[in-house]
């Protein structure tokens, strides 16, 4: 079974440009999460999808970040325009929903390292 895959693995862009990160969750996983780790800091929650709906986007830093999950399958995270402080590693994770509706163990991707110069 394929795990959570993220594209690209690395991206270097100039300040002011746009970047789109993609996450393909494990097939059948309704829950999809985006996290970010800034160098040396903790991994911070950005948002949570249940299928195509945003369940919690309390961690999104500002309106330069836009996450979508059309059709409830893969998700994209767009940063427009990118700023220097957006540099970091962006992780995606997915999990199933149990019969009781709770989330099971989350599986993480390898992350996308974004560098804004």
């Amino acid at each position, binding site marked *: 079974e394929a*795990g*959570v895959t993220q594209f690209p*693995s690395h991206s270097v862009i100039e300040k002011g440009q746009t970047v789109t990160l993609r996450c393909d969750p494990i097939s059948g996983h309704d*829950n999809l*999460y985006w*996290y970010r*780790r800034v160098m*040396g*800091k*903790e*991994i*911070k*929650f950005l948002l*949570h999808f249940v299928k195509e709906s945003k*369940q*919690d986007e309390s*961690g999104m830093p500002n309106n330069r970040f836009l996450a979508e999950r059309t059709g409830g399958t893969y998700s994209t995270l767009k940063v427009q325009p990118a700023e220097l402080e957006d540099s970091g590693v962006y*992780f995606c*994770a997915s*999990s199933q929903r149990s019969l009781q509706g*709770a*989330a099971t*163990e*989350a*599986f*993480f*991707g*390898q*992350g996308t390292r974004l560098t804004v110069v």
Partner: protein
Amino acid sequence: AQTVTQSQPEMSVQEAETVTLSCTYDTSESDYYLFWYKQPPSRQMILVIRQEAYKQQNATENRFSVNFQKAAKSFSLKISDSQLGDAAMYFCAQRSVSGTYKYIFGTGTRLKVLA
């Protein structure tokens, strides 16, 4: 607010020896999950071990075990018989049993294994 603290940015251990990684957390919830995740360089983050807060027994997974002290809000990871493949970034995390199920992570501990 929920927080997770890992006070050791980096640790080293000799191959075949034992090492303990520290983690403390803070939460107002009575039931929650605690995790240790491992991320080798440029690879996926994988689950090492999970502890459910209502269980008093410490979780173990082969060479990996935890020392869970609920009253002290401490959740350390012990790696026995360390192997070169254990070298990675280790993240301690906490998750609610309800709500959005988001993980609260610590800053991570980089473990080096010396041959």
